[in-house]
């Protein structure tokens, strides 16, 4: 399986190396991906819960101004 690419720019020599991630780098990358996915899921769940709460408040007869005042 092809691993993601990493680009290393030595700013002192201006040498640029582009290669696949090694095993350790790839493991670190996967960990970041997991964190991101967990964070995204949490944010999406929070957003969905908010939308649901707003819908329920509206169903109870509250106006948008009243909901915003909460």
């Amino acid at each position, binding site marked *: 399986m092809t691993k993601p690419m*990493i*680009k*290393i*720019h030595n*700013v002192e020599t*201006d040498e*640029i190396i582009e290669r696949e*991630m090694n095993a350790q780098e790839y493991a670190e*990358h996967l960990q970041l991906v997991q*964190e991101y996915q967990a964070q995204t899921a949490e944010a999406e769940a929070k957003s969905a819960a908010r939308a649901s709460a707003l819908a329920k408040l509206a169903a109870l007869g509250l106006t948008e101004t009243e909901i915003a005042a909460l």
Partner: protein
Amino acid sequence: MALQTFTTGQVLTAAQVSALQANDYNQTVSTKTANYVLTIADLGSRVFMNAAGATTITVNTGIFAAGDTLWLGNIGAGACVVTAGTATVSKFSTASLTLSQYQGAFLYFVSTGVAILYSDAAGASFPVTTKGDLFGYDTAAARIPVGTNNQVLTADSAQALGVKWATPSSGGGMTLISTTSFTGTVLTLSSIAGTYKELRLYIKGLYAANTNTLNVTFNGDLTNPGYASLTGSDAMNRAFSLSGSGNSSMNTWTYLNTSANSDSFLVLTIPNYSNTTTMKFMNATGAVETSSGSYTLGTWTGFWNNTSAITSIEFRGIGTFTAGSVELYGVS
């Protein structure tokens, strides 16, 4: 009037007396236009050099007697040097034997072979020759040639004249260290010199397909926990959202452009990045275009809880970077 020799019993004529009287206030001028050797005939006259190039007036021994005097002058553009031929010509300590244009001197013979030059070229001839030259001094007056544009005069005891023209240090300026396009999933800027006070990074038009996120780490460190604070609107919170308990060193996700053609500009500032005694602080500000074409603005701060000097910066994406560039500047 040339030197006169009178004999015992001689009766002076009115013309002779008048000529002698006139010699007190209107001496005969003997103008020379090339190198010249003084002769006894010059006594009682003024020897003036008038030449465009450099010339000499040579003083030899055995020509003049003790007490004899001569007026010398230079009206030409070329410097005229009163030169000791076979005689010794001394001068007042700060005077010069060189007569520049319109300078004069009084030559007094102490003996037939030793003369003293009393020159109005006090201190030296005027040494400056070119627009912008300065008058310097070491053991004598000397020229300090004008420097090049934007140089400043700097004291330097190692220089013969104690000063030199030098390019000022780049205090307060920004030096572009590198420009790198974003490709791959991780971009590392390595071997960053610790010679600046601050690092500043301009990230332009960064876009990563599918994920639109960016994580910044230093020296490859993913283990030291960091902390980031955030200011801005709800939209900004979404654009610059935080992960509260992860183990990334700068535990912040930053939304990037939402398409390869959208617009963004982020500025990352890392002051005191090369010190080895304290944690490292980072500040980021930017504007990012959203998928709807509006912009989110925000400021984000964080620190790296590590005392090592920052020598590399990693930009970690989730997807692949497909557009954008980063300019790394060192601020002095």
